[in-house]
């Protein structure tokens, strides 16, 4: 039975939820607003909220100074490539863990996840040296591999959770029907896990898109994605908040739109298994 909630309490809860939501969203909102101000208005004190002269000049300057499309393309390739590669590797791994677990499966999962607790900077040096040796510095391929490896534990973990929800008898039925392991994964497991795989892909695409540490350290020009594009506006001539904001807004816009349209899928995917 649902607990009785008085209307007053309900509106209070709603107000609280909105307040927390706005608090979290405020920095992004402020960045977007700032991107439409002049540099002088951007640093005005007291700060201007909506009562300023809206202008698009920052966008024009950013557009003129750097090739947005090239950065965007690199971001798409790196985030997309690392996600696709990660899923291709993670599906069989998660299959094995979910359907033919051993005594050590739980340990392996935890160990994989524990690699996420390692501060990235701790392995920067060896990876940087490897990249030099292998000629991967400032290449999209190198970043695809690194970001895939970084996010692989999460992809495996998520897929493992979804696969566990699929009744084993259905896979056994496929085996009895003459399906090989490959056919079983391709024709039965994957289509049944599509909602789970979709939200895994989405989340990892977002994580890879937003990843800044490795993209900033391992790229210079050729493979630089949108994170590097933002960073390039924080440097030499001092801080130009309005232009930095415009660049940031352009960098986060694609992912913001993607997230907005797929939020239902994302929430459903993340709570899959928790609520049956």
């Amino acid at each position, binding site marked *: 039975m649902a607990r009785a909630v008085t209307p007053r309490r309900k509106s209070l809860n709603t107000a609280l939820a909105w307040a927390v939501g706005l608090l979290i969203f405020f920095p992004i909102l402020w960045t977007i607003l700032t991107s439409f101000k002049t540099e002088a208005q951007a640093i005005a004190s007291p700060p201007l909220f909506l009562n300023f002269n809206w202008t698009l000049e920052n966008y024009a300057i950013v557009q003129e100074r750097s090739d947005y499309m090239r950065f965007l393309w690199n971001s798409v390739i790196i985030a997309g490539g690392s996600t696709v590669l990660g899923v291709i590797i993670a599906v069989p791994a998660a299959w094995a863990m979910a359907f033919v677990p051993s005594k050590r499966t739980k340990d392996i999962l935890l160990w994989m996840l524990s690699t996420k607790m390692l501060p990235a900077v701790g392995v920067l040096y060896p990876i940087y040296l490897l990249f030099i040796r292998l000629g991967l510095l400032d290449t999209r391929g190198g970043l695809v591999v690194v970001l895939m490896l970084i996010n692989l534990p999460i992809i495996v973990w998520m897929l493992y959770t979804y696969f566990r929800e699929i*009744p084993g008898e*259905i896979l*056994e*039925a496929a*085996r*009895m029907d*003459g399906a090989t392991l490959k056919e079983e994964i391709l024709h039965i497991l994957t289509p049944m896990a599509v909602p789970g795989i979709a939200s895994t892909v989405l989340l990892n695409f977002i994580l890879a898109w937003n990843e800044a540490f490795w993209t900033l350290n391992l790229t210079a020009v050729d493979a630089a994605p949108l994170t590097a594009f933002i960073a390039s506006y924080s440097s030499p001539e001092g801080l130009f908040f309005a232009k930095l904001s415009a660049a940031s807004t352009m960098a986060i816009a694609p992912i913001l739109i993607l997230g907005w349209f797929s939020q239902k899928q994302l929430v459903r995917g993340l709570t899959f298994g928790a609520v049956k």
Partner: protein
Amino acid sequence: MGRIQLKSVTKSFGDVQVIPPLDLTIQDGEFTVFVGPSGCGKSTLLRLIAGLEDITSGSIDIDGADATDVPPAKRGLAMVFQSYALYPHMTVRKNIAFPLRMAKLDQAEIDKRVEGAASVLNLTDYLDRRPGQLSGGQRQRVAIGRAIVREPAAFLFDEPLSNLDAALRVGMRLEISELHERLATTMIYVTHDQVEAMTMADKIVVLQAGVIEQVGSPLELYRTPQNLFVAGFIGSPKMNFIEGEEASKHGAHTIGIRPEHIAVSDSEGTWSGKVSVSEHLGSDTFFHVHETGLAETITVRADGEVAFRHGDRIHLTPRADVIHRFDEKGLRIE
């Protein structure tokens, strides 16, 4: 062809041996039922035959060839699961066609066989639906359809009717029996329901704790149960067991008498007692009789017209020719 032979098969999960060495031969075309209480190893045995579990030692032959290390996909057996295990993302047509697609048959042949199976199973109108849009009985038919299209060496059924309601279960029981008549293919059927076992089987294998208690035709098991377990498990209501003085009179440690082999009377009989509960089924009446001095309760099956009520005095006479005798170990004395 589908002759299946198990030779000294054992199965252990970790240190626990669930199937001690077991030998069993299932003849081609035979309808064999594995029956036993929950946890007796009957489903495990079926899964060993299917190849879904590896045997710990021993060997399995299918049609004279060693199939011990053959993966399930290559054993040529079809299985119908308790949960139906249909592919939820595929239509009925695709579900039934799946094993044929895996066998790389050409599309025309696949279509022909799917249509054929669908018409046999009354599924023609549902071919383009998804499993989620079907009733329990229809889903069960799809599962059977998926099994028959590939013309397997043998069918394996794992408690296929236990998710259906009582009326549907009787109907499907008949359909499966008819299917066996028509296809004459080996069928192995696992159930805990002794009525299913009795009505469908050519041969019943009674299992307890992974051990075969008895193998025989339904009537053999009914008439000459080899031990107390089989005697108690086969037959409904359960056989009455009487120990002590009454048993010694027959030269046995325990005697067993089926409820239908006891005559009732209000005036005279070998034994007497008091009716505690009477269950009227219309065709039959079951009396549960207390205070007989023989056992706590003696169950009697009488004609539907016989009317005794709670507390009535009742006289009972067992049919002497069908009293089963067992020794101290619970084994049958001939």
